[in-house]
């Protein structure tokens, strides 16, 4: 029997081959006439000023931190949700306490202005 993950691997390989096939076919048949103007970085008609790969402020840094916390939380939530009906009231209350702690964290971040886009 072919296992699930073996099947997924075949999907992955074919998807890769499909993407590569499209690009390579295009490279084989398309004309190639690069000119200086064609190869400039696209902007509003003038040359771009300064390097692109600069350090700049990612305004969503605090969002990203919160995202990591909540994303890890969902890893705990999924197994719990699957077994929710057989685990009983105790597990439900436990999970409410767990969620409550995180919600307090979210509320604190909100209050401190971490959820404001600056």
């Amino acid at each position, binding site marked *: *029997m*072919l296992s*699930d993950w073996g*099947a*997924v691997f*075949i*999907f*992955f390989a*074919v*998807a*890769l081959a*499909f*993407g*590569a096939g*499209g*690009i390579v*076919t*295009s*490279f084989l*048949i*398309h004309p*190639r*006439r*690069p000119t200086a103007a*064609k*190869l*400039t*970085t*696209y*902007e509003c008609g003038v040359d*771009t000023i300064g390097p*692109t*790969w600069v350090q700049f402020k990612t*305004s*969503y840094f605090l*969002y*990203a931190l*919160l*995202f990591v916390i*909540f*994303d890890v939380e*969902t890893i705990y*939530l*999924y197994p719990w*949700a*699957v077994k*929710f*009906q*057989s685990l009983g*009231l105790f597990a*439900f209350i436990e*999970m*409410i306490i767990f*969620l409550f702690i995180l*919600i307090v964290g*979210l509320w604190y971040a*909100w209050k401190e202005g971490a*959820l*404001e*886009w600056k």
Partner: protein
Amino acid sequence: MENIFIGIASSLRGFFSGLGVPDLYNDIIMLVVKLVSILVFILVNALWLVYMERRVCAFMQSRLGPIHVGPKGLLQSFADIGKLLGKEIILPKGIDLVVFLLMPVLIFVPPLLIYAVIPFGKDMVAVDMNIGVFYLLAVASLSTILFWAAGWSSNNKYSLIGGMRSVAQMVSYELPLILALLGVIMLTGTLNINQIVNAQNGIWFILTQPIAFLIYFIAGVAETNRTPFCLVEGESEIIAGPYTEYSGMGFAMFFLAEYANVMIISAMCTVMFLGGWLAPFGLDFIPSWLWFFLKMYVMIFIFMWVRWTYPRIRVDQLMGFGWKVLVPLSLANIFVTGVGMYIYRAIGW
């Protein structure tokens, strides 16, 4: 009609085992057959959706849209793809060549991997995985990395901003998307997509989980980067976001992947909330795959309707709405679902 595809699959399998092909190789051959049919399904539908999108948009703006190529303009998308295939892929100066060329190749991988677990009809799923929903969510979020890398490698400021925005959007909308599905998981107690569909035999989850459906729908629009959440490629601000420097087939791959993603979100809405391939009102003389297809297209039409109705929102509104409305709402939904199930059980229905 119901068993037409399953019948073809089993007769093919019978044919190959009749030739003396061992079981493992037979599995692989059948999987490749399914894969090719899924690929054809995606490509035909993506081309059709491009045409449909233009016609729907034109209709909503009192225009005609494409009508000249083929009957009623039906062949417009084929002409477009032919043209794009023959166009030069421009490699602008200063790009990170390897990453720049790798991204259009990779961009189609996450959507196709997701199609592996989507049931197109009764018993019509390529890989019947026991953790289907979890796998789907895990793979779906990979697209963001590809968008970001495409934006970064282009050596273009618009692309960079677009890539960064795509990460910001994922950070705020991935969470409601994941949390919204938890209500459904709690009701069914399984992550297998086929069993989730079967659990909706009596009542569709859109009726028992309406809030979750709305959250999933909104977050889905945001995940596919469509208006009103199209900040990633907001054409009036940052040209085309991460795809600005891509031309020809490179651009076409991104476009194809976008429509594949739209179909995935619609298919997931169908499967998780609208009963998947189950026939409503006992109308089961219409085959299950046709039901799935119809429901999916209703969802796609609603997506298009939303796209051409609402204006684009601002970045701060985007982040604020995700974190201050959708996340608390989806957490509340989990709580209400849990309490509701206990009350339901206490009443003893």
